[in-house]
């Protein structure tokens, strides 16, 4: 896999991870799903999923670059991903539902 594609995957993983972490928070869950309640168990799973994705992003960064460089790329990717998730929540919150396919049907 070319390095640029690996790094793209790292960014996508960081983005999804930040998105899941946001969904695990009550205020942001409401922005995406409204009244439907997020069970504590689901919130916990979302936090795990989010954390693991961020870790996965780090591993992908490490696969491309020298460890010192990968650490910087990872930190900055996290910042960019958090920014994108925050702006998505501000203007197009419902888009984050794409991170939990099928759950809407379940809630209804």
């Amino acid at each position, binding site marked *: 896999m070319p390095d*640029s594609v690996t*790094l793209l995957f790292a960014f996508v993983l960081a983005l999804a991870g*930040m998105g899941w972490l*946001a969904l695990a*928070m009550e*205020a*942001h869950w409401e922005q995406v799903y409204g009244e439907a309640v997020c069970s504590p168990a689901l919130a916990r799973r979302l936090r795990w999923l989010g954390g693991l994705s961020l870790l996965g992003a780090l591993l992908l960064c490490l696969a491309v*670059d*020298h460890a*010192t*460089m990968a650490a*910087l*790329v990872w*930190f*900055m*990717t*996290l*910042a*960019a991903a*958090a*920014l994108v*998730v*925050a*702006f998505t*929540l*501000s*203007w197009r919150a419902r888009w984050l539902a794409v991170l939990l396919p099928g759950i809407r049907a379940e809630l209804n």
Partner: protein
Amino acid sequence: MFQNLRLSMAWLHTWFGLVLGFVLMIVFFFGALSVFDREIDRWAIPSSRFEAQPMPSFDQVLKPVFETMQPSAERIDQLRNKVNGPVPTHFTTPSVWGAYTTHRDPVLGLFVGYEVPNAKEHDTRVFALRTIDPRSGASLPDDRLKIGSSFFYPMHYSLTFYWKNVGYWIVGLAALIMLAALVSGVIMHRKLFRELFTFRPNKNKQRSLLDLHNLTGVVALPFHFFFAFTGLVIFAGIYFPITHTQLEPLHELHERLDAEETGLPHDRAGVAAPMASVDAMVVEAQRRWAEKGMAGEVGFLAMRHVGDANGYVSIYRAGTDRIALTGEGIHFKAFTGELLREDPPSSAVDSVNEFLTGLHLQHFRHWLLRWLYVLGGLMGCVCIATGFLFFVEKRKRQHAKQGSQGARVVDALAVTTVTGMVVATLGILIANRLLPDSMGAGWPERQAMERYIFWGAWALAMVHAFLRSAPVAQGRLNPAWREQCLAVAGLAVVAVLLNWATTGDHLLRTLSAGYWPVAGVDLFMLAGAMVALFAARKLKQRAQRAPVLRPESSGPAHA
């Protein structure tokens, strides 16, 4: 003084942030541009628009150029107070020849440091600088300003105020205060993690501004912290100038002992000697790097005590594949070409220092990380700008009622440092494309003109910001924000069009040729123009909705 820690932190954050925020805004913005300083140089100097080149042959290309280099009249003039007796006009004893390049440089920068006869202080040197095309050895005109690496980059760390190094000190103080602002900001922020993803653009203006301030401050917190901190580390030698004050004798002793230990002569022998083939030394250095599993190009090449029996050549590797700024230096005797020394692996402390400085100075080849640094820098700008705006929003209605001018002045200064700075930046790029190749008699030289136009445009933006600031005193928006956004949009498009008109390099051509340095600068300016237009439209909508607040008393508002 304050009831609790949080209030005292808030005071510190507000007032120190306000005063030094203006400096930090400049540091962040020009820091972000400096990530692509070499690319901006290509845009500004069309004759240097070709692919990056490796270090050329020393024996064939560099040596003949070094031998003809002499300090400029201006630099010789600066020696006047440093010499006993008349200042020489021609210098004959070079103490160092140096050539420095990176993986992003098509042209090569050379310098020669000459010993100064009859100098009052024994270490005095006068430097000659030149930029050449490494393919042919031909010199580029001296009076072309490398806007990226010789103007925006120095602006980032010194504001280009060189008198008594005062610019470095202001920037250093700002970096120190920035660290304090980050710590106090984190303490003030009650919900650091709970509001990590929170930006509510449709709440009241103060809430939205504070959200954006927190968001851009917190998500890039490691970036902000490390860049302020490493910036201070890099210039520690300036901020703690003990080696040439209290500890001067120790410093001199250390230099001599260091020379004894490394076998690299500290002084000239006083015996003239020819030099062996430096190209052969380069081949040997590259062989040794490859042996260590670090095959690479030459980044920095220097010859000390040129033409003397004690002369030696130091060859450093270009550090494109790691963060740490290490040269893996290999040193040869210039006279015979024999190996004098290979730098040993760094100690733990050195490694940390090399990582920290390398992280900030970014010699590595990693385009994604470069762009992420630009993003970090721009987030810093947004964080500071929203800080100013929050300060103004919080106070302007109250100030309007009291008839105070405080919010008005801060707002006008904010216009100057936010949009005004961008106007000035575009101003120098436009001047660069419009000024004639050589200024006529009686005019300053071209590169000075470019810098004057930069400061002139900024001063105009400031005058405009203050002239239009009256509505702020009534609790309304300064129309200068919108007008300068429009100016930025217009100037950015003009700059791109002028690049096309004066060089023929329009975007279709640079993009299809894949010449990213110039295409990237053009695209970045066009993207900036779109953001500015969007902002201007939003500001217009907001101005039409805003209520008018007048001072409560009808006469002069206060005594």
